[in-house]
């Protein structure tokens, strides 16, 4: 158990350090990489709490997809660091308030609702417990309507985002790829048979 505790504090320290790095890094690309590290460390903490499905999905969705796009956008835009820094002071009270609310919610959930046993540890999962299966079983039975509605909302968001960025320009020359692929050699090359010409 001691080993577990040491690992927990080690990963938590890296997590907090990385989270501070996100805020204080001068280079926006560094800040994004710190955010990636933050996500990764929280995934590890979830793994240690035996929530392997959530941990892996966090890495898969946030680190593997969302942050890649984030990095992409930040690399393309020249972000003005000084302007962002001025925002830091302005938005700090709001961020602090949100942090306090979240901390209060965590305390309420963990201590007051009794998810923690008397000696301060979580109740261990029974042998052979499958996190993924348990989550799926609840998601597709009890919460199936909420799940479906969330899926439809996301689909709508995808369609909306694509329609917003799609614009038709007149006189735009585009390639018709299926037509290009369907081309055969005999459509393009004509072999002409002719007699040898003699010098005259």
């Amino acid at each position: 158990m001691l080993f577990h505790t040491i690992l927990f504090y080690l990963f938590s320290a890296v997590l907090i350090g990385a989270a501070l790095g996100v805020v204080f890094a001068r280079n926006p690309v560094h800040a994004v990489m710190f955010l990636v590290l933050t996500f990764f460390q929280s995934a590890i903490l979830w793994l240690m709490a035996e929530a392997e499905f959530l941990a892996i999905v966090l890495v898969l969705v946030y680190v593997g997809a969302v942050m890649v796009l984030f990095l992409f956008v930040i690399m393309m835009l020249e972000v003005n660091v000084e302007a962002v820094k001025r925002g830091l002071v302005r938005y700090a009270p709001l961020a602090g308030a949100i942090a306090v609310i979240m901390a209060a919610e965590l305390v309420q959930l963990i201590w007051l609702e009794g998810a923690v046993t008397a000696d301060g540890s979580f109740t261990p999962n029974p042998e052979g417990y499958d996190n993924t299966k348990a989550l799926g079983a609840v998601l597709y039975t009890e919460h199936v309507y909420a799940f479906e509605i969330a899926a439809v909302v996301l689909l709508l968001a995808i369609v909306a985002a694509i329609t917003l960025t799609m614009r038709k320009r007149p006189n735009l020359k585009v390639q018709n790829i299926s037509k290009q692929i369907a081309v055969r050699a005999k459509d393009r090359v004509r072999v002409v048979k002719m007699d040898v010409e003699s010098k005259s």
Partner: protein
Amino acid sequence: MKGLIPDFALNIWAGLPPMVQYLVGTTTAILIVTVGVILTVAFSTYFERKVIGSMQARVGPNRVGPLGLGQPFADVIKLLIKEIVVPAQSNKFLFIIAPLLTLIPALAAWAVMPLFPGFVIADINAGLLYVLALTSMGVYGVILAGWATNSKYAFLGAMRSAAQIVAYEIAMGFALVGVLMAGGSLNLGDIVEKQSGGFLNWFLIPLFPLFLVYWISGVAETNRAPFDVAEGESEIVAGFHVEYSGVAFAIFFLAEYANMVLISALTAVFFLGGWASPFEGWTFLQGTPLAFIAAPGFHWLFIKIAFFMYSFFWYRATFPRYRYDQIMRLGWKVFIPVTIIWIAVEGVMAWMQVGPWAGLGT
């Protein structure tokens, strides 16, 4: 095993606390698998040059050691003693760390790979998700390398690579949804077990379109020919690793080949039954020296990996490079619809218990 290790060593081992035993055992397993992967990578470069050489009526490497087998080591030593040039306007920290970020996921994914019956470093329930999560992380190294170099060519290569990997990852993920539906589990060991009992039980047969999508997406994910536009030496010199030299370049190279071996192994595990023998149930072989043909084991996984590695090299020698818009079209407009349709087909067929789909997902 008993005869190999002296008794006092066994006694010392038994006297250690279980935590230490666990740590030492896992670390040894990790070391063996990692060194195995790196050696496979070294010899697959030799294999590639020999295969492509023979396809182009050349000899390939034959100077260093017998049959040229020492060539990989000669190459490694050459790269190790070369100077690393860091471009003056580059972001030094990210420039150095980018190759490592491509290599780490390629090696870490082997943790959940079932290598032979009963052996896997980490037998986790969500193994398939773990593999997906880690393979999606390899893109960071490429993007960061392209950006940190501070060169137009490198940045173009990085952008191409990122867009391509993101596009093909979705098709790969959907293909794996089909596999997990068929296997009824996210654990790679269980998926292999489910396919044991001869090649008629392989997921290759009921999931053939998904196999094609997964394999081709795998080739695209590893940035190999014909999808190697991220390097595209005819247009953008060498893409994201244009400024890398010496060991840093060697690590990119190692990561690329480690990813190839990984994709080969994963395709073998998901669709060709991993370590399961295709001829299981050939009882007349029992007791003969050929019994290993019917027995499951590491040799079958190795043969399947070797076949897919050969295919990688074969494509490189055969196909011209894809045009970029056609890569995107193939990923988004062909593969994703194919996978979605086949998942629906698979679900209906397994539900109605038709033909090869009967018994899937139970």
